[in-house]
């Protein structure tokens, strides 16, 4: 439904938003994206990890080791204060963009 560019541009604020709800891990993040977009945002699973690696490198999120119910090793992510600030900035940008588009539509 959405273009590749739009999906890529919105990926960071979406991941940060999901982590701002609580700590999570790769598969659960993907599932949350599908759930809240009613399947409109069709992310390929492999797209998520480079985003997580980048956010971790930028110190917006951090990871810690955990395990699944089945005892499998699992990596969890948590948002950091810098990440929350970045999320607020991104949200403001998206709101402003939305405002501009609505304004132009009304003309």
């Amino acid at each position: 439904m959405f273009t590749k560019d739009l999906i890529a541009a919105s990926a960071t604020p979406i991941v940060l938003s999901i982590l701002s709800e609580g700590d999570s891990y790769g598969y659960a993040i993907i599932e949350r994206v599908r759930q809240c977009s009613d399947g409109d945002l069709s992310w390929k699973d492999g797209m998520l990890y480079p985003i997580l690696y980048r956010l971790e490198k930028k110190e917006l999120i951090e990871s810690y080791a955990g395990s699944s119910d089945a005892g499998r090793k699992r990596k969890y992510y948590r948002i950091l204060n810098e990440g929350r600030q970045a999320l607020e900035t991104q949200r403001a940008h998206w709101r402003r963009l939305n405002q501009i588009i609505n304004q132009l539509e009304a003309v």
Partner: protein
Amino acid sequence: MSASNQHLNELIDRWCEEHLGAVGSSVSEERLDELKDHLACVAEAQIEQGATAGDAMAYAAEQFGDAREVRDQLASTLPVFRRWLARIHCKSASVSPPQEKKTVLMSLVFAAVLLISAWLAKDSQSHAFISTVIIAVWVVLTSRQGGTREAARAEWRWLKRKLGF
């Protein structure tokens, strides 16, 4: 562990070997476990709905999509020397199959040229000059390849970071 789970784990290991290559065996276990956990979660959800381990893994791989970006990101976390070694073995993340063939071919040509020049210049006073010219030509040729240029840039950035620039 059930036979189905064991089979699924084998399929996941094989997928990692095929798609991550030398990078997969060089990155931290934690990173690799994370990808394996993801594939297992997707496949297990399919198995719960009645799929076989093979079909479930095929679905998980399809959902995962192109693994090259993940491989590139993982490769960039490797120390420079290990990344370089992975590149030499043509299994590096940033070297796509056509580039691998080109790199192997150029390596063979380079080795042949060095051997021939060594033989031709064995009695010459200018063998050091000839070797330098050949190496310079090689550097210029390889730097024209996209992957090599990107790797050089990444390594330059790494070096600058380490030196505190």
